[in-house]
Each structure stands twice: as C-alpha cells, then as structure tokens.
C-alpha cells in the first residue's frame, strides 16, 4: 500500500488544522469557506502537493459547516449556504436549545459530507473515464452547458448570461497563448498595458480580490458594525434540551434525501450552497408527513439544511476533478491552488494521479470526522468565535490577501494591484445586481473555451461541426436546451405567482 506511506502525521495535523480554521471562518458572519481557502493559500505554497491538499480540503469542509454556528445562535447565516439553518436553528436557540440544535446540525453535516464523499469516490472516475474521449468540440459544449446551467439558475437568466460573458471577456485579456496553439499576440488592451497584462490577469489574485477585498468593501460601506451589540450568545442547556441520536429516528429518509440533493446541486457548476440547502429544505417541507413545525424550531429542518449544504463539498468536487469545471466558488479557488501545485484538473487527473486522488479522498473523509469531533465536543468554545471583533479581523484578512496574491507568481506587484482592481469590480458588480458566480466561472473557463472553439473551427472549417460531431454533442445540446427551457418556465411560474400574490 503505497498510499499509506503518504499519509503521515503532518497530513492529518494539516487536515485538522484546516478544518479548525475553516470552522472559525465559517462561524464568523460574513466570512465564507471561499475566503478561508483564499486567505490560507499562501500557507500551501510552502507545502508539498499532498500536504497542501490536506489543508485546503480541511478548510473547505470546515468552512461550509462552520456557517451553522451563527445561523443557529444569532440568526445570521455564517455562509450563504446556512440560510435555511436559521429558520429552525434560531427558534430552537431562543428556547434555550442552542446546543441541541448545533449538535443535530453537526451530525447531519457529517452524514451529508460522507454520503457526498462516497458519491464523489464512485462517480468522479466514471465521469472522467467517459469524458476522456471528448474532443475539443465536446469540451467546448460542456463549458457552454456549464455556463447555461449557472445562468439559468441565477435570479434572472439574462443577467446571469451577461455576467458569465463579462467573465469570459475578462479572461481573454492578454495574449492568445502560444502554448495553447495561439499566435501569441495580445488583444483587448492598449499597448501601455502590455508589460503588466501580457499573460492576462492571474486567476488567484482575481478570485482573492473578488471574494476577499470586495467583501471588506461591502462591510466598510455599511460602517463595519458589530452584529452583537447587546445580544449574548446563548448556547445553554434548557430543560430536556439534551442531544441524543434518537432525534434522528424517523428522519433517515430526510437525511439521505437531503444529502443526495446537496451532492447533486453541488455537481451543477457555479450553483452555490444556498441553492442546495433551500432545495432540500423545501423538499422536506413538501414531502414530510408533518411539516407544521418547520420554521418554528423543528430538528427536521436543521437536518435537511445542514446535510444538504455539507453534501455540497463532495458534489462540487466531481465536475472539478473529472471535467476541470468548478462546482462552486470555493472549488473555483481550489482549481487555482491545484494549478499552483502543477496539477491540471480534468479527465486525465484521476487516472494519471491515482495516488493524489486517494490522498484527496482520505483528506476529505478525515476532514469530515475532524469537523464532527471539533464541533460536537468543542462547540461551546467555537461558539465564542462569532464574537471576534471585525476591526481586528479585517486588516489581517487584507494582509493575508496581499501575501497570497504577491507570492503566487513569486513576487509580482501587479498581482497585488489586481486584488484592488477586482475588489472594486466585485463590489460594483454586487451593487448593480450582476451575478458573481457566473462571472467567476466564465473567467475561469473563458480561455479554454476560446481554444476549444477556435481550434475546432480551424480544423473543421464549418459551424455545423458543433452539431454533427458525435451523439454526445447532440446530447449536450439537448441538455443546454433543457436548462434554458427550465429557466424560462421557472421565471414564468414565478411571474404568475407574483401576479397572483399582487391580486390576492
């Protein structure tokens, strides 16, 4: 077993450290798992591949689950994905059942995480195996599908598509790289920019800017108020509020269903955790025998929400590892971290890096258990994290963002300025109502889309090739069409509902 020799003490320590830091980040309102990964990136530069992955996956799992703490205790979702946790968690905390609510959520998170890890383990190699035969044409269509799916799940499809296209446009700035078969000439810029932007904007500074700096700008605009003026964090044990596994009796279907919903939503590119938990929550509401208590402090709501949002982790890694397409914004940062370690994710990743693949699975599963034990037994202390004042935290975050951006290409100051440029851009985008997720996915996939598209046309000489290449291409077109139709019917339904509400 060669693999066992790779799993040394440092590996487990780093996973645990990652999970702990992730939980802390997730627990602080406004800080997300994406930010945790982005801020801790510089630490991985010095680590080897396996150790770096251990830390990053720990951060990812910890960051997603940490969001439940403020959701339950303060009614503020620590990460967007824990919105539905507030519905039932906060009423429970008000009744003095905070600890019980958190422990239910922790168990649900563990189950969600493990189920999705199992799906990842079984499904990603299959998908990779299948997609290995894809030519440039299918690869281009997959990217097109990914962007359509993201856009169709945005609040407004048109705005979603527009945001995605802006992302692609931004990614095209720079040269048409010779290593990709281009002619090495630059475009979309003025001559004076060439020394800085010859290779375009670097991915990680862009991501760190959008997720780190713009979050701080958005908070600064609101005056960086403390959310906890007179509110004391109540975790206390009320009478009969002790936790026991019996609470999960009769909730197994809910637990498993929500975990699978989370995994599935995670697989869709660019769809954040909030969609997963909202979908699982509404499904439980529709399908449960008794959903009358939901929203008033019912454990079943917590189970649905938390198992789904943690199941996102494994799900989001499936398209990342098998197709090279990130499933959510956190995996978008992970893709950058992989590139940094010299790994090209895509269909060839799993067959060519079998060891790394097993190491990742080990880290993912171990991170879930660490998350469980930390949160289950140390929840009282972790709950205090929500009290860390932002005026201490924010400057440190900016500082770590700088380190992350500067060191990525071994000391290029322009990468640090990229932080500011995209920090401001990210702020403006969110203010005017454009969507960040499609933009980021467009930015990540844009330059690949160009190569696949242009090379396909250069060799075939006709646009019809995109339709006639293979049966897979036809299936992909059908899927693209389906997601567009889905989006249009959804928006029509919403509009009709809205109109009815106005009339009624």
């Amino acid at each position, binding site marked *: 077993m060669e693999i066992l020799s790779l799993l040394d003490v440092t590996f487990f320590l780093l996973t645990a450290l990652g999970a702990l830091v992730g939980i802390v980040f997730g627990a602080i309102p406004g800080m997300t798992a994406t930010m945790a990964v982005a801020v801790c990136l*510089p*630490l991985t*530069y*010095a680590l080897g591949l396996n150790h770096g992955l251990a830390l990053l996956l720990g951060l990812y799992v910890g960051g997603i689950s940490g969001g439940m703490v403020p959701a339950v205790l303060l009614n503020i979702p620590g990460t967007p994905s824990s919105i539905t946790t507030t519905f039932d968690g906060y009423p429970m905390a008000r009744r003095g059942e905070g600890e019980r609510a958190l422990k239910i959520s922790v168990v649900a998170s563990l189950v969600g995480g493990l189920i999705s890890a199992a799906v990842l383990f079984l499904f990603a190699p299959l998908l990779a195996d299948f997609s290995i035969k894809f030519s440039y044409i299918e690869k281009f269509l997959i990217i097109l599908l990914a962007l359509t799916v993201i856009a169709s799940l945005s609040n*407004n499809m*048109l705005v979603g598509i*527009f945001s995605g*296209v*802006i992302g*692609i*446009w931004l990614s*095209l700035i720079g040269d*048409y790289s010779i290593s990709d078969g*281009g*002619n*090495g000439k630059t*475009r*979309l810029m003025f001559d004076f920019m060439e020394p800085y932007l010859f290779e375009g904007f670097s991915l990680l500074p862009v991501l760190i800017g959008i997720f780190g*700096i713009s979050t701080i*700008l958005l908070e*600064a*605009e*609101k*005056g*960086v*108020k403390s959310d906890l003026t007179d509110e004391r964090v109540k975790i206390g044990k009320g009478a009969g509020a002790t936790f026991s596994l019996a609470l999960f009796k009769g909730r197994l279907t809910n637990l498993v269903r929500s975990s699978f919903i989370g995994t599935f939503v995670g697989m869709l590119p660019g769809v954040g955790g909030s969609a997963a938990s909202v979908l699982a929550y509404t499904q439980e509401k529709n399908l449960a025998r008794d959903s009358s208590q939901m929203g008033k402090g019912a454990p079943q709501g917590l189970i649905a929400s938390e198992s789904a949002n943690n199941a996102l982790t494994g799900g989001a890694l499936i398209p990342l590892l098998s197709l090279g397409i990130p499933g959510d914004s956190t995996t978008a940062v992970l893709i950058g971290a992989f590139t940094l370690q010299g790994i090209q994710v895509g269909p060839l990743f799993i067959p060519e890096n079998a060891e790394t693949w097993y190491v990742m699975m080990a880290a993912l599963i171990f991170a879930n258990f660490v998350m469980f034990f930390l949160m289950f037994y140390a929840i009282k202390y972790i709950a205090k994290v929500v009290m860390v004042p*932002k*005026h*201490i935290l*924010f*400057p*440190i975050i*900016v*500082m770590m963002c*700088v*380190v992350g951006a*500067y*060191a990525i290409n*071994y*000391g290029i*100051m322009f990468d*640090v*300025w990229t*932080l*500011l440029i995209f*920090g*401001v851009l990210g702020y*403006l985008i969110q203010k*005017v*109502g454009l969507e960040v997720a499609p933009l980021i996915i467009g930015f990540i996939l844009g330059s690949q*889309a*160009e190569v696949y*598209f*242009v090379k396909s*046309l*250069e060799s075939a*000489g*006709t*646009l*019809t090739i995109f339709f006639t290449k293979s049966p897979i291409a036809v299936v992909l077109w059908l899927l693209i069409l389906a997601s567009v139709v889905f989006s249009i019917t959804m928006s029509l339904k919403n509009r009709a509902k809205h109109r009815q509400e106005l009339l009624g």
Partner: protein
Amino acid sequence: MESGLSDLLSVSIDFGTSHLFFPTLITWIMAVLFVLVVATQVVPFLAAVKRGERTLPIVGESMDGLRFFGTLALIATYFYLMTVVGDMFPYTGYGFLFVSIPFVFLMSLLYLHEWTSKALVIVTLNAFVAPSLAWLILAKLFQITLP
C-alpha cells in the same frame, strides 16, 4: 439552397489574426446582451426610481463614506508604499512587515467604533503581533517571497 446554407456556416480563420476571432465574437455577444439587459432590466428599474419606488444602487443608498473611502485609500496607499519600502530592502520581506504594521493599526482604528483604552491596547498589540507573526511564519519559516 443547401450549398447556400453551408456557405453561410463555413468559417475560415486566418492564423495571423486568430487571436482576435473569439474576442471579437464575445465582445459582440456582450454588446448585444448589454443592450438587452438595459432594455429589459435597467429601463424599468430607472422608471421605478423616477416614481420613487426604488433607489439607485451606491449613489442612492446611505453609506458610511468615511469608512468606505478610507478603506479604499488605505489599501491603495498600503500597496503603493509596500513596493517603495520593499525596494529599499530587497529580498527581505521588510517592505511587507514595516508597511503592514501601520496599515493594520490604522485600519483597525478606522473600523473601531468606541475608542476605549482597552480596545486601543488590543488594536496596538494586534498591529504589531499579527504582521510580525505572518512575516516570521511565511517569509522566514516557509521562505515565501514577500515585498
């Protein structure tokens, strides 16, 4: 008729200008989408603003101007001075260390709402400890390049 259609769909790309093919296409798509977004979203929104039902983002909202623009100015100065100081001590990371300390201090002060002596002590301590720790761990221990 058939040949007419395939003519329409056939494309030939000159390698010398192939770097412009996809960007031009995307720029056009972006422009068309922009017009559509303006027509379907922005125009109704502006009409609602005119009727007083909605407010414009950024300009029409209340914002903490001091903290927002203060943050922008601080970050820009921070980035700029880091290069300047970093060039004085190349390959040491001192640029990062020496500029981060005042930056962390000033940004903490900017965000601090109640200037109690206890809070000020914590802010000052943090301003010295956090950058030094980051510098020690990253630049010295892990040998990461810092300005």
